[in-house]
């Protein structure tokens, strides 16, 4: 019934659907249709794969009461708006948009469909009451990786394949570098900007460029397993980390550990809230403690003492006794950012567009 109203379109659209939404919200919905918008293919073995696992967990948790739909390979930009509108018109009650670049399209479409809930991953804009944002504290995992990288490098050169210059990525680079530096003061960090989330050949080329520069530990913030495949060609001389997904097929080396994004608890919780009527706008940012960021098994390629230190750091972060950004930390230009013992406020992190002291090179604008 509601859907037919929407399809009739015209001026009645906004009013009618808003009415339907309010009533539904008070009592909870009988059945929820949840839409997921992915930036890459589900088979990327990384970022999108994990989001889809979360979507499947929702289906598992509520069975007949939910219907999930998804769209893969949605380009960031104007096309995303078309896909979102299509999903909204097809009767979705809640739509998860799972890439930073969907931020503006999500807010734009949300304005037109006030009764539909929009959830945007890794962004910060909540222009309308029906837009929530959710993210995971990946920098906590990067701290653990940085420690391993600092301890494991023999050439004292570590690398980072970055995607786009956004706070999300820069946070990870800073955390990785700070902890590598702490573990090994001689360490140097090379950063390669790939300007793509998903292009296996380019990601492999970036890894190769780093390896050609004597880098022997590579972390990546792109979506595919290609950097690990490139590292695997060196017969153990170069190690790396699983990104977004466990990437267990490259165990025990080159993949010595990983950051696993676990979106399932959040998706299950949010769809559940819609079903029982407790849904409210949210700005969610969970980390290791909340189970959204998991540290994949640290393999035997890492010496036992380093592994123990890394696990101790993970546990301290989970327990809340250690924050990866604890002062004193200076910005790249030498100006003070955090005083001795101070921890970074979330606002600083979410808008982080500067490198910390010691990293060379400039952030592309």
């Amino acid at each position, binding site marked *: 019934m509601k859907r037919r109203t929407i399809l009739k379109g015209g001026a009645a659209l906004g009013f009618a659907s808003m009415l339907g939404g309010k009533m539904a919200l008070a009592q909870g919905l009988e059945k929820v249709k949840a839409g997921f918008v992915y930036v890459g293919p589900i088979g990327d073995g990384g970022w999108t794969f994990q989001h889809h696992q979360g979507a499947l967990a929702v289906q598992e948790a509520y069975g007949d009461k939910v219907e999930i739909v998804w769209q893969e390979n949605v380009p960031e930009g104007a096309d995303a708006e078309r896909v979102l509108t299509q999903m909204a018109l097809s009767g979705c009650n809640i739509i998860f948009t799972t890439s930073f670049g969907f931020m503006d399209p999500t807010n734009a479409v949300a304005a037109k469909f006030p009764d539909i809930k929009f959830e945007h991953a890794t962004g910060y804009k909540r222009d309308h009451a029906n837009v929530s944002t959710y993210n995971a504290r990946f920098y906590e995992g990067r701290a653990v990786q940085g420690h391993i990288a600092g301890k494991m490098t023999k050439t004292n050169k570590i690398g980072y394949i970055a995607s786009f210059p956004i706070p999300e990525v820069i946070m990870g680079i800073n955390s990785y570098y700070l902890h590598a530096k702490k573990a090994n003061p001689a360490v140097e960090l090379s950063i390669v900007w790939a300007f793509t989330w998903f292009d296996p050949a380019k990601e492999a080329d970036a890894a190769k460029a780093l390896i*050609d520069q004597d880098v022997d530990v590579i972390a990546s913030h792109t979506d595919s397993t290609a950097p690990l495949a490139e590292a695997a060609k060196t017969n153990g001389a170069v190690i790396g980390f699983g990104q977004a997904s466990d990437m267990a097929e490259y165990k025990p080396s080159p993949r010595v550990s990983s950051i696993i994004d676990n979106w399932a608890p959040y998706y299950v919780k949010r769809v559940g809230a819609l079903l029982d009527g407790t849904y409210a706008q949210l700005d969610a940012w969970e980390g290791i403690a909340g189970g959204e960021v998991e540290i994949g098994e640290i393999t035997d390629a890492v010496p036992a003492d380093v592994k123990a230190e890394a696990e101790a750091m993970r546990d301290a972060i989970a327990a809340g006794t250690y924050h990866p950004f604890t002062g004193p930390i200076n910005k790249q230009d030498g100006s003070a950012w955090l005083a001795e013992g101070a921890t970074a406020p979330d606002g600083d992190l979410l808008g982080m567009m500067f490198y910390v002291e010691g990293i060379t090179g400039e952030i592309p604008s």
Partner: protein
Amino acid sequence: MNFGGIVPEVLIASLMVASVPIILAAIGELVVEKAGVLNLGVEGMMIMGAICGFATAVGTGNPYLGFAGGALGAAALSLVFAVLTQVFLANQVATGLALTLFGLGLSSLIGQGYVGIKPPATGDVPLGPLEDIPFFGTVLFSHDWVVYLSIAVVAGVWAVLKFTRIGLILRAVGESHDAAHALGYKVVRIRVLAILFGGAMAGLGGAYVSLIRVPQWTDGITAGAGWIALAIVVFASWKPWRVLLGAYLFGGITVLQLNLQAAGATIPVEYLSMSPYLITILVLVIMSSGKGKAALNAPASLGQNFHASR
């Protein structure tokens, strides 16, 4: 030798590897276009080659059979295009675009069971003492066999088009299918064969991506290489050696800009990222603008369907 942390011989060796998929796909497309057919489905055929090659290599444990499988799989897909455009006279542009979409989808379907599997390794060609020659050893004699094959194919296509009767017939069909038909050549048959060759080459290029360059299967693994190949054919004004040059330029600058970043060069990253596209187009356009005849290089019947009754 070492320039700002970049070793030239390593860089050249990397660019030769990085360019192989584009060279193979582009030289195949060049033959297709020389025969007067515009097949925009290169990306789709490449990715079919990538998955078919991967599946065959994993199934048989033999990387060489994998490449054969990739070429066959992509040629089979190009046969669909050939039937639609040559027999049923469908619009070539629309059919080519549809072929890409179809190839992407089908490869994803076939690839479902292959995510996370590693293919059998393809080793470098053992060239013994040649590999130890300073500079040239690294640049020329430390590659896998497909790198050499890609250059051989370019040379072969150039020689066939320029010196042989087959080449002459192929070009005649592409320049004026009516005249070729009047002379008694089987226009449709020749075009179908050219399309199959183009498909097989695109398939080899795709298989190179999934078997050697990034030895794994991931959905969408070719990530647009087919479109680059298409563009290079045009900017190379349908000349085989310029295709090689264009592909090396593109591959080379892509590798160079990543290396510059890794070495900590002070050039802004934005410029580095756009440089492969910009420089490749600039160089090829300038090269073909000299004689003022670049447009004449396009096969005259390119993209036009042929039917004997006309």
